[in-house]
């Protein structure tokens, strides 16, 4: 009905000054977002940084304290119910019924979304095949493995083919193998035109997103594509090798122009503030002439740079 209309909308999610307070505690602070249609957008941050709260605000599960949200071209406020047929949500905790079988869960969710008869049956068969659950149709959801539960949850969240899909830490209970597969499925959905907002605390997952926001204590510290974030990083990465790295780490960490020093195998990965003009020389002086080279920044470096006490704007 609105397909023609929605083609013209550039952004699936637009948020301006979105805030949520729980009493004195500010869970989300003046969040601005512009998420283009058809992209996978990530919320990266530690536990308690406001990722889940942001997602709940954007789905209309929580009432915002301040700010405006536009979802799929419609203001969220006042359109919560009509938008519910157009968005899907996969919760952090498994939220289907443990004492119903896979098929019963799908049947239930299908009926809730108004599917009936042959249309429902066909859609469920399609999903069972797509998410590799055909052998588990009679198994109780509670007795399935983490990966199977996650696939069932995704099947239920996408049963009604939503235009916008919210995933709250979808891979926290899943092994790396299943995580890879899961992301392949997300890219399939994305290729079919679904906009996906996913929260995670895994760097490798964040790196797969088209764009992401780094969150800390309810604030958005940085956003952009992983590439742009790494390029525009406000620190230089220097790798130092040699012996007695533990002592060196202590000396380096105490220096105000050094954001962080972390040991990775046989070398220290040091983040030096951009204002230091010759970081190699700077490190060499500090480390009594140990060997050091410039390294390519990673998303983790970006994360470290823009979070923590010493983060630089």
């Amino acid at each position, binding site marked *: 009905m609105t397909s023609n209309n929605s083609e013209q909308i550039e952004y699936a999610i637009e948020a301006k000054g979105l805030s949520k307070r729980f009493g004195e505690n500010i869970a989300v602070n003046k969040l601005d977002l512009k998420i283009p249609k058809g992209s996978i957008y990530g919320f990266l941050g530690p536990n308690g940084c406001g990722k889940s709260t942001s997602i709940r605000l954007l789905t209309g599960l929580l009432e915002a304290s301040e700010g405006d949200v536009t979802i799929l071209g419609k203001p969220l406020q006042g359109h919560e119910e009509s938008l519910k047929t157009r968005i899907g949500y996969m919760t952090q*905790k498994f939220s289907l019924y443990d004492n119903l079988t896979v098929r019963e869960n799908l049947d239930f969710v299908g009926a809730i979304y108004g599917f009936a008869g042959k249309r429902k049956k066909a859609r469920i068969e399609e999903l069972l095949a797509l998410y590799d659950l055909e052998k588990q149709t009679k198994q109780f959801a509670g007795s399935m493995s983490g990966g199977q539960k996650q696939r069932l949850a995704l099947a239920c969240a996408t049963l009604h083919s939503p235009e916008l899909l919210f995933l709250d830490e979808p891979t926290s209970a899943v092994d790396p193998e299943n995580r890879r597969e899961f992301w392949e499925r997300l890219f399939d959905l994305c290729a079919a035109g679904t906009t996906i907002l996913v929260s995670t605390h895994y760097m490798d997952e964040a790196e797969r997103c088209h764009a992401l926001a780094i969150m800390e204590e309810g604030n958005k510290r940085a956003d952009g594509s992983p590439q742009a974030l790494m390029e525009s990083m406000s620190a230089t990465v220097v790798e130092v090798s040699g012996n007695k790295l533990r002592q060196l780490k202590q000396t380096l960490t105490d220096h105000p122009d050094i954001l962080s020093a972390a040991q990775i195998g046989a070398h220290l990965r040091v983040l030096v503030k951009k204002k230091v003009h010759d970081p190699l020389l700077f490190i060499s002086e500090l480390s009594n002439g140990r060997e050091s080279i410039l390294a390519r920044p990673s998303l983790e470096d970006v994360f470290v740079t823009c979070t923590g006490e010493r983060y630089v704007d």
Partner: protein
Amino acid sequence: MWIRVYAIFIKELKQLSRDRMTFGMIIMIPLVQLMLFGYAINTDARHIPVGLVDLSQTAESRAVEQALVATQSVDFIARYRSIKEAEVAITQGEIRAALYLPSDMTRRLFNHPLYDHKQLDSALTLPIGQWIVDGSDTVIASTIRALRNMPLDEVANHTATRTAPSFEVVQYFNPEQRTVVNIVPGLVAVILTMTMILFTSAAIVREHEHGNMEFLITTPVRSMELMIGKIAPYVLVGLLQVAIILSVGHWMFSVPIQGSFLSLLGGSILFIFASLTLGLVLSTIAKTQLQATQMTIFILLPSILLSGFMFPYDAMPVAAQWIAEALPVTHFMRMIRAIALRDASLLLLGKDALWLGLFTIGGIIIASLRFKKKLG
């Protein structure tokens, strides 16, 4: 709309049938309560342990004792030499009452105006003995009190010169005055209150606690659909319990079921709906299942005590009657007893039926309004 209500209904029914504990309780609660109330609990006190202080020691005093034992109201389990000893035994709780027969009991008996034909206007109107009763338990006290005018014709060897009673009493509906006849229909009301409110008060809370609600409220399901779908399966559960209590009560305790099937069904459904919506309202207030259970008990106690189940409604003070009127169970207590025992039709009980209906509609509206599709 009905697709969704039906989906929730089927889902609840399946979950219920897989929860063996809950399913067992649905059957066991009415059966156990029925046995307890049917056999164990009886407000006609019998075989009360009492003592005897017999200072008369005559054939007549022994005859009085035997006449009392024959009533089955009391059992003489001890003898005492003085009133003092009997009082100590009552304080200790060995006996609940003691009968004192003075040394001149025989003379008192034959001079008693009831048995003394010759001296009709005798000045001596002394009682022939005295009961000392532990009056703290009113049921026991009233049972002993009832012995006050016990006829002693055989003892006195005389037919009493008794006048005709002022009133004749005909006991309709329960001529043998068996407690169980009144208890069993009342039990329907109490058990339904208990199970219906308990099940539904946990219904919404459970979805929250298991994390299902977070998903459910991002779907297009409406509050009203969720509420109706959630309570519908329990209507069947409630009717099953009504059937269990009334049929077991009928076969085991010969409680007569006079009313028509339709009136019974209609009345029960009205009350089941009212109780379920009350549970739903509680469910939207409670944050955890424990809180829901506590609130259920908060409602359950006045329901048992004020509804007229154990104590007559008419004997309560006006304030208590107002509280009782607010509880659905009071209305159903009147209805089920009227229908089951007195063959009253539902139309005859229109006021109570109407009240239950309004309560249900009001409850559903309040629950739907209170249940916001929001978290936190």
